[in-house]
Each structure stands twice: as C-alpha cells, then as structure tokens.
C-alpha cells in the first residue's frame, strides 16, 4: 500500500473505540428504555397512558400516583411483612451458614468430606421434588398462612452460601486458630471472635444475595400465604395486577408506580453494594 502509514494505527484505534462505545450505548438503551417507559407511565394521568402520540414526559407529572398506590393496597403493611421475613431470613442464613461453613472448613472429623460433597450435591436438586411433602409437613404443623415456612428453613443453612463461606474461611490462616486453641479458647470462641470478623466481606456477599433473594421470592409466599393481611410485596403486587387484567379497577399508571416502589429497595441495596455482589458472582461462576 502506498498510503501514508503513520496515522493509520491511530485512526484504526479511534474507529474501534467509536464502534465499541456505539455498541455499548445501543445495548444500554435496550436495557434502560423499558425502565424509562415504566417511570414515564407511572407519572401519567388516565388519558396520558393511552395517548397517541405518547408524551414521554407528561406536561404535569402525577406524583400522587405513588401516594394512590400505597392506599389502594396495604403497601406499608406488605412492606413491613416483607422486611420482617427478609431480615429474619438474612440473619438466620448468616448464622447457620457460617457455623456449618466453619465446621467444614476448620474442623477435622470422620465423614466430613463425604458430607460436604453431599451438601454440594443437594444444590442440583430441583425444589419441586421436595415442595409437596414440605407443604404437607408445614400444613400439619399449622404453619400455613404464617411466615414460619418462609423463615425457619433458613436456620438450617443454604448449600451455596455454605460453600461460599467455606471457601473464604479456608483462606484465613490456620495459625490463628492454633494460637487461640493453645490459649484455651473453644472453637465457638474462635468462630465468633477470630473467623467471623475476618470474614466480613464474604458475609456481606452472602447477606446481600440472601436479602435480594428473599425480597424477590414469589413462589414461597404464593404457596404458603393465604390471607391478604399476611401477603408480601410481591404477592400484593400480583394481586394488584390481577385487578387490572381481570376487572380494570386499577389503572396502569398506578400499577406502574406500585411496581417501581417494589423494585426500588433492592435496586438501592444493589447500587450501594455492587462490589460485594460482583465478588460473590465471580466465586459462584468459577465453581463450574
């Protein structure tokens, strides 16, 4: 080629950068537009949602849609229910999983490795296989329509989080334990005063995953909760939706405001703590 070659790599580099940013922005639009559409709808009035051509930014935004939605279904009650369940599940999961993980990571006892393999293998079991007997059992205990079937299982640990914490505990030097044991400390004491404080980043990851998982849970409340006053936000939002598609009693702009309110808390939690999330996912992904 006879073209001057000096500026070509620079030009190529520039073109490449422009194309890459173009793709990133285009994909971002695909992810963001539905959200903007939702926010826009939540601020419309009755005519605005159905108007054509559509005004993305309504002339007079109806902020009171958000107030309306908290009154047409017991939003605050459902929020309190959801928070109670979510926080209990998170606390119970942290406690049970860290204890079990300590046992698997720091103590030597016959059968340990077989049991750990068994623990991991239960991750592959689809929940549908145990769902019906569990329902029958909780029904016999008189726990249906209470929060207990949603909270109590967390006291027994979750295999994936046990695995995650065990991997982290293994990276904490054993010498700490040995020194403490020589000083006469019990394992319970080492667990609580040495390992747990050092494991804070891993515990944060587990807490976040559990919080978001419990917040988003729909199947559990759907199966176990019957009376409206015990519903969670996801269940309540679904009931609200049923009114719009079934009876037309609820309006779309109000439903969108409700959906946004339900989305908001864990989006906020995620944005505030992305670092822990990303780390946890990396560990999760590498286990394959």
């Amino acid at each position, binding site marked *: 080629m006879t073209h001057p070659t000096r500026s070509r790599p620079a030009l190529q580099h520039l073109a490449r950068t422009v194309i890459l940013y173009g793709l990133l922005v285009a994909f971002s639009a695909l992810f*963001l537009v539905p959200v903007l559409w939702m926010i826009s709808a939540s601020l419309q009035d009755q005519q605005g949602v159905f108007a054509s051509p559509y005004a993305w930014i309504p002339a007079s935004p109806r902020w009171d849609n958000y107030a309306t939605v908290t009154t047409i279904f017991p939003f605050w009650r459902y929020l309190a229910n959801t928070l109670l369940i979510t926080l209990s599940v998170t606390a119970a999961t942290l406690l049970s999983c860290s204890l*079990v993980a300590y046992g698997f990571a720091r103590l030597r006892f016959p059968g340990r490795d077989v049991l750990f393999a068994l623990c991991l293998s239960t991750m592959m079991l689809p929940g549908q296989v145990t*769902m019906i007997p569990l329902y029958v059992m909780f029904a016999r205990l008189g726990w249906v329509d209470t929060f207990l079937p949603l909270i109590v299982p967390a006291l*027994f*640990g979750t295999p994936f989080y046990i695995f995650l914490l065990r991997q982290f505990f293994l990276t904490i030097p054993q010498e700490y334990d040995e020194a403490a044991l020589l000083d006469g400390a019990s394992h319970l004491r080492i667990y609580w005063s040495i390992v747990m404080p050092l494991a804070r980043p891993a515990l944060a990851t587990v807490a976040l995953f559990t919080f978001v998982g419990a917040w988003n849970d*729909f199947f559990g409340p759907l199966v176990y909760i019957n009376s409206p006053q015990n519903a969670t936000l996801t269940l309540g939002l679904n009931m609200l*939706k049923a009114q719009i*598609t079934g009876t037309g009693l609820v309006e779309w702009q109000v439903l969108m405001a409700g959906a946004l309110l339900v989305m908001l808390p864990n989006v906020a939690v995620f944005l505030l703590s992305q670092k822990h999330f990303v780390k946890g996912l*990396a560990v999760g*992904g590498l286990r394959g």
Partner: protein
Amino acid sequence: MITLLSSRHRRTLGGYAFIAPWLLGFLLLTLGPMLASVALSFSSWTMLSPPSWVGLVNFERIIADDPLFLRSLWNTAYYVVLAVPLTVGLGLVLALLLNQPLKGMTAFRTIFFLPSVTNMVAVSVLWLWVFNPEFGLLNRALALVGVEGPLWLQSEAWAKPSLVLMSLWGVGGTMMVFLAALQGIPTELYEAADLDGAGSYRKFLHVTLPMISPALFFSVVIGIIGSFQVFTQAFVMTGTAQPGSEGGPNNATLFYVLYLYKKAFQEFKMGYASALAWILFFVVLAFTMIQTRLARRWVHYEGGDR
C-alpha cells in the same frame, strides 16, 4: 462426662455440632421430603382422605393419557431451546464488550446487570405493559416504522417468544460469570499469540474460547436447569383475577412447573403432582449428565483433568 472422652472424640463431636444445622436440615427438609415425595408419586392423594397406593398409575396416566403434560413439556422445551442459547450468546457478547480497556465500564456493567437483580413480579408487571398490543412500548415503537406489531402475550404464537425476549433482559447474571472468566485469562497468553502473529479472530478462537469454556459450560448447565423451572413470569403475566387462568392463551405458556403448581396447589392432586416433579427431576438430570459427558470434549480446565 465430656472429660472422659478422648480429644479425638471431642473434636468429632465438635465438628458435628458445627455442621448440625445443615445435617438436621438435610434430614428434615431434603432427605425426608424426598422419600415422602417418592412414596406420594405412587399414591393418589387429595389431602382430604389418607393417601392410597396406586403403583405406577400416576406415571402411566401422565405419559399415556395427559395432553396437558405433553403440552407443558413442549412449551418448556421451546422456551429452553430459545432462551438458553440466546442468553448465553448475548451474555458473552456483553461481557466481551465490557472487557475492553475503555473508560466508564463500571457504569455500563451496572446498567446491564441491574435488571437481573430486580424483582421478577415487578419486572413482569413492567413487561406486561411493554407488551400491551395497543398502548405498549413495543407496538408503539413498531407503529412508528409502519409495522403493525403482534398481540404478543395474547397471541398463541407469540406468547412464548415474548417471554424469551423478556428473559434476555435478565442476561446480567450470565454476563457477570463470563466477565469474571474473561478477566481471569492471563495476558501472557495473548502476548504469546501476538508473537505468533495471530489476528483477533484466531485469538478469540484459540485463546479466549478455551479459557472461558468452564464458564460457558457452567452457564449452559445452570441456564438449562433454570429455564426448565420457569414459573413466575408465566404465572404473573398470563393470569387474570381468575385462579386457574394462568398459562394462556390456550395453554401456550403452560410451562412444566406452572402445570405442576396448578396440579398441586389448585387441584390438590398431590400424588399426581409428585410424579410430575420426579419426571422433571429425571429430565433435568439427564440433560445435566449429557452436558457433563459432552463437556469432556470441549471444556478446557487449567492444569489438566479435574
């Protein structure tokens, strides 16, 4: 009495004490229910009278005499076959983009990932409005370019593709798994490929792909298991106020787990539903085993066989 035990026994007891929560949970919440579920699958039971043993009748009826079982299996297979490759493909493309040495990647990563952690019921409500044939985002956009969009969720032909489209919005988790894998590739490998004069295509084929093959395998396996259990979006988006209306139109979105749920918790046919659950278990297990077997040919693990 504890002082009479040797230190080895004490250690054993200590170990079991720490793992006791999981061990108890395994016996009470996993193993026990599993065995009960096996027994139930050979029984007829509506929770009103005691269960009665019927042998293989549930399985025979499901396989030979239940058009809805076949329909739900077909719907689920359709969803898995479309959603898994598309999610894995899009997840990989996005991860490759995010792995470029450019500024502002954290912001793009957040945007791509955020939908996948948001509440599925709220997301379903949002997409219900996006898919609205008359006033929804999609058909309004299509109308701008002169195309009359389909009825989406209200159309028997388009209902499943609609849910697949929506599932792509939740690609974030898969993307993050690929991104972590890409960031774990040592740069020396690319430098060595540069020295050999490899272009970007060949570098992708011979360095990137083998290095991320464990993540690819993981995503496909987890994707198949997850897609076989698709439930919430179908339940929320296809039902009306009438219980039992979920899975429409004309059973086009009656996915396997939705069918199982209806049998168990709307019709209270606990034996029949348990049999359905075990069939699902073996179908998913078979897929996972086939995957694992095929993986030996294409998954590359650092440091040889594992």
